[in-house]
């Protein structure tokens, strides 16, 4: 079995499990909506307009709900020694990483898909073609930090306080992509010319490439005994 097919088999397995129960994806979506809501209520209504907050809110929501999603990435494997089963299969460790990462990415993007229209609605985001660009940004932004998160959650799940450790490890690694993406979002929503966007997109892509490669290389060290 070649590596890509193995990766796909693992991703498909994870996504099938998620789809059959749907509890996790619904709960994570609810969480994302609640993050948006709490920002609305935590804001100073007199001085800060919804439009001013919109880009930050989107990225805070994506960052926090990704943590919830990533936390459970390896929980499934911990039960009944499932990870040992997968590790016993003659499958390249990096392929295992790609499978888990892809499933995580899809999960995070599914949550974003629910949160996104509500974000447009709640924060009075002007519907424009720029919104397609923002959706693209969500994908570009999530690629890098889900890669980091997949490695970290494979470790934290084997520790005490897993659900506390993952956010603490992850959030510093989310700062650069969230910052780059929020900057790009601001410019997209403000209808700025493409030249102002390129720099941010390049940084985001650089982050994705660097951490995807690093995570692929380092993941085998995490799972191997």
């Amino acid at each position, binding site marked *: 079995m070649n590596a890509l097919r193995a990766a796909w088999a693992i991703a498909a397995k994870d996504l099938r499990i998620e789809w059959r129960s749907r509890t996790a994806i619904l709960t994570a979506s609810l969480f994302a909506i609640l993050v948006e809501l709490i920002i609305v209520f935590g804001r100073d209504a007199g001085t800060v307009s919804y439009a001013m907050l919109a880009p930050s809110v989107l990225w805070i929501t994506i960052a926090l709900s990704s943590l919830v999603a990533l936390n459970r990435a390896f929980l499934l494997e911990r039960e009944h020694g499932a990870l040992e089963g997968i590790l016993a299969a003659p499958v390249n460790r990096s392929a295992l990483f790609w499978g888990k990462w892809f499933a995580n990415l899809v999960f995070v993007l599914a949550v974003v898909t629910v949160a996104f229209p509500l974000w447009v609605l709640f924060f009075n985001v002007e519907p424009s073609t720029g919104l397609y660009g923002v959706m693209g940004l969500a994908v570009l932004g999530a690629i890098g930090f889900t890669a*980091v998160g997949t*490695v*970290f959650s494979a*470790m*934290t799940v*084997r*520790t*005490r*306080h897993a659900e506390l*450790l993952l956010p*603490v*490890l992850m*959030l*510093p*690694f989310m*700062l*650069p992509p969230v*910052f*780059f993406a929020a*900057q790009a979002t601001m410019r997209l929503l403000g209808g700025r010319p493409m030249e102002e966007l390129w720099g941010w997109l390049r*940084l985001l892509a650089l*982050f994705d490439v*660097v*951490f995807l490669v*690093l995570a692929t290389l*380092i993941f085998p*060290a*995490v799972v191997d005994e």
Partner: protein
Amino acid sequence: MTLDLAQADGHIRRGRVVTLLGLAALAALYVMALQFTPPERFQGLAQKIFYIHPPAAYAMQLAFVMTGIASLIYLLLKDARFDRFAEASAEVGMVLAVIVVITGPIWGKPVWGAWWTWEPRLTFTVIEMLVFGGYFALRGAVRDPAERAKFAAVVGIMALVLVPFNHMTVYLFASQHPEPVVVQTGKPELPWVMLRSFITGFVVFTVLYMGMVMQRYGIGAKRDIREALDA
């Protein structure tokens, strides 16, 4: 076992000597800075903190980079000594980072007029502290020594790769805000008497770094011996 213990004690003893030398040099540096280097024209005595602040920041960066390199070597060789060194270096880096974020605002208040600004280098230090806060949290949450070393090494390497991204982030973030006005960010010419004290500070902090890491390495070795006995 007894030999290992003696070795660990040796590290601690030598580390203590080096640290004391560093501290004595730091005291000498301040005699030099206060007695033989003129006060800066605009900042007055506040500028004297610069013989600690930038050297501590440099030593912090050195410490965290060394942790990253040692982590990589650990993953390749699985030699516990590199894990111990990575841990020691990270912890010393943390102490140095605390020195940076304490001395920064003390200088910032009189000169910039605010205790805290999101100045790039200060922000960078805070982010590094949080990254390594996670590193220690992870270390504390894993009981098995081999697994702890392995996981910590993974974070150590990831943290090293994150450094350039953090640099980009804090500088680009700062460029979104107005610059502090009191100090010009151009390259001012430092007179030789000040430069001399300034460079000495970097040497002193390198010595302090080495001394503290040696001590911490010895403590780590003792912990490992005890853990091996308990197992």
